[in-house]
């Protein structure tokens, strides 16, 4: 396809241990889960599970092990199991992560691994929160392309640079790890939150879009970008590596240069 490469050797020496045989390393962990079963107990509580896990197991595998082998009532959302659907954002050892992207061996397995629901959204059961307020904020920033004038018959043109301008914020999977890590969002839940701003950014800086002004107006609200106190929790939490705080800063600048 692209570069011509020298033909690789048909046979190579493999490093020891790669070729075959050997054991899969196992290790023991304690998974400390914040349980909340509103139908049986009014209060949330911690429950420990002692598990034997293998090589490259992730926190999601540990949760599955509990659900499938120990306690079927443990509830959590998950789907893709490789970090692209955004179902399983949760607080692991105190920080927001995706359970399916967090390898157990990267955590300190000598201490219990704590797992709890993300903060700031209504808790429904165990690790499940009500996502509706989160999506409501997302919908409010008009997350869709709006263009004036005639529909082109073929595609709209866009230069490679213009496309690159908003690439980072197109990666968002709406997992809410950012918004639910934001200390401002925890306070009263009114703040639009980083995820909504990220998705507004994706359109504000898309050269094909004509409604940037409207979105800037929406985010110029008292619950908009100005509530961000640049604590960077969102950027650190984002499993897609989006530079969330940077995107927020860019939206702030855009509002400033529009009004001033």
């Amino acid at each position, binding site marked *: 396809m692209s570069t011509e490469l020298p033909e690789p050797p048909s046979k190579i020496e493999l490093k020891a241990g790669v070729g075959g045989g050997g054991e899969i390393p196992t290790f023991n962990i304690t998974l400390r889960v914040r349980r909340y079963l509103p139908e049986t107990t009014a209060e949330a509580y911690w429950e420990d599970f002692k598990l034997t896990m293998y090589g490259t197991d992730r926190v999601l595998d540990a949760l599955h092990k509990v*659900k499938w082998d120990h306690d079927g009532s443990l509830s*959590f959302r998950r*789907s893709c199991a490789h970090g692209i659907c955004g179902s399983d954002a949760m607080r692991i050892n105190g920080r927001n992560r995706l359970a399916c992207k967090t*390898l157990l061996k990267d955590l300190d397995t000598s201490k219990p691994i704590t797992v709890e629901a993300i903060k700031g959204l209504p808790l429904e059961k165990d690790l499940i929160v009500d996502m509706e307020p989160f999506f409501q904020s997302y919908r409010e920033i008009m997350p869709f392309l709006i263009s004036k004038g005639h529909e082109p018959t073929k595609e709209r043109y866009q230069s490679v640079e213009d496309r690159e301008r908003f690439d980072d914020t197109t990666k968002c*999977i709406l997992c809410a790890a950012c918004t639910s890590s934001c200390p401002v969002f925890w306070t009263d839940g009114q703040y639009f939150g980083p995820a909504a701003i990220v998705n507004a950014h994706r359109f504000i800086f898309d050269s094909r879009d004509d409604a940037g002004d409207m979105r800037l107006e929406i985010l110029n609200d008292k619950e908009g970008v100005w509530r961000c106190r640049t604590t960077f929790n969102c950027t650190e939490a984002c499993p897609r590596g989006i530079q969330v705080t940077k995107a927020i800063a860019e939206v702030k600048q855009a509002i400033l240069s529009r009004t001033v």
Partner: protein
Amino acid sequence: MQVHQYDVVIVGAGGAGMRAAIESGQRARTAVLTKLYPTRSHTGAAQGGMCAALANVEEDNWEWHTFDTIKGGDYIVDQDAAEVMAKEAINAVLDLEKMGLPFNRTPEGKIDQRRFGGHTRDHGKAAVRRACYAADRTGHMILQTLYQNCVKHNVEFYNEYYVLDLLMVEEEAFREDGTAYMQKRVAGVVSYDLATGELHVFQAKSVIFASGGAGKVFKTTSNAHTLTGDGMGIAFRSGLPLEDMEFFQFHPTGLAGLGILLTEGARGEGAILRNSDGERFMERYAPTIKDLAPRDIVARAMANEVREGRGCGPNKDYVLLDLTHLEPEHIESKLPDITEFARTYLGVEPFTDPVPVYPTAHYAMGGVPTNIETEVLQDNNTTIPGLFAAGEVACVSVHGANRLGTNSLLDINVFGRRAGIAAAEYAKTADFVELPENPEALVTAQLDGLLNSTGTENVAELRKALQEIMDANVQVFRDETSLKGALEVIESLRERYKNVSIQDKGKRFNLDLLEAVELGFLLDLAEVMTTAALHRKESRGGHYREDFPNRDDENFMVHSMSYRDHNATTEGIAGIRMETKPVVFTRYQPMERKY
């Protein structure tokens, strides 16, 4: 129980479901029922691209695309459907662009295109750049763009509503030749609200099934945990046929043990496969194109290496994808996802160490049979008024025995759109079909049975046993013994399933209960897949029988149609009736599939 009334109800909010919703939502009162939040659907996992003969970067036309699709599907593709898809592909891509999808661009600012396996210029002369893409996140962008447009058009979503039953009535009707038959008509669906545990019946003039695939029948799969073939299972239980269920695509390079997909692009960029001796074994299986042979051939070669004891790792159950001879910057720029997956999930640094890979169950070519208007068939020629299907759950059939890369994202857009329009148009003229009495009775009985069961069997255990036997016996190599062995296990699991119990007895977010329900669908589908595979005594595309290694056009150039029928027995399995459906030919005659 609550009853709702809509003109159109769409089951599933993946690419196909939301593409349909955008059309139907603007024409009729539409509700979308989905067991996942729309943006969690597995369409978001697709990486490579979506092809259309835009000819933005080099000469191309839809007719060549049609040919590639038919040949790729080993000629068991319905050619009228393939033509429709290739022709409408161009507008499908342009529509997405107009909706805002951020495609990668050429230096002139047009949608960029790249090569993909099996897509060729002028009937196989050379590879052609046909796949439109957005980095290695094409599926993600499609899913997001479609959801965004659903928000724009105020589509009504019922999130985390599991559809568990399809409501149909039967009435006597007469064919043109005067013979009587039972015509099915759709009345609505029954769904379970995960948050409250309540049943909601949706009465609808039109119902579109867009509930995606069934990869979880297998252990190693690139599919999500939630892809349990519910739509196919519901259709089958309601007496509808399933078409071509023996054809399942196994993608060669899934991360070993996990199944997470590493795109074909890796080998395109020069990565090669090695066994435990460090040998580049594809030199033996496909001496000319080696590692770039078609998916099914590579997958079989890999499985064979492992079978013959040259697998790697503690259990000698995978081979290695070697990128170490490539320039790190090159890998990083072209294959960022691969390197990240390998690092995150296996802790392997692909620059210095080879990555463990094994074929992974990827795509169900078969499904609920439809015609090119996406109307569901109740038998070879009778459509069901008001019932539509699109996406991976359906079988139009454009993928035949083997789907070409990038044709599925296309499928969901082209046929999703068609389904949305057709369903809304139908709803404009049709009346509601009266709901049967106690429409929820079947589901209530099923759920109560599980909730009150005092059985001793465990859902996870049964599912594991099923997935393991499917991986072992119904994967890339099949023969009579392996398939019969699998069926035996499946039958015993079905027996044990009657005795499962669950631990969570609550009403809120009872995923324990739903996993049990999903297992029921998986068992049904595994049985159908295996029986159909046993029935097809030839090798074609993704279906490879070691006891019948050749394609047999004389006897098997037909689609298979599996029905649930309590009076029938197929291959020793009671309750399944196997029929055939002719393949539609327009202008391409079967040839040997050679690359």
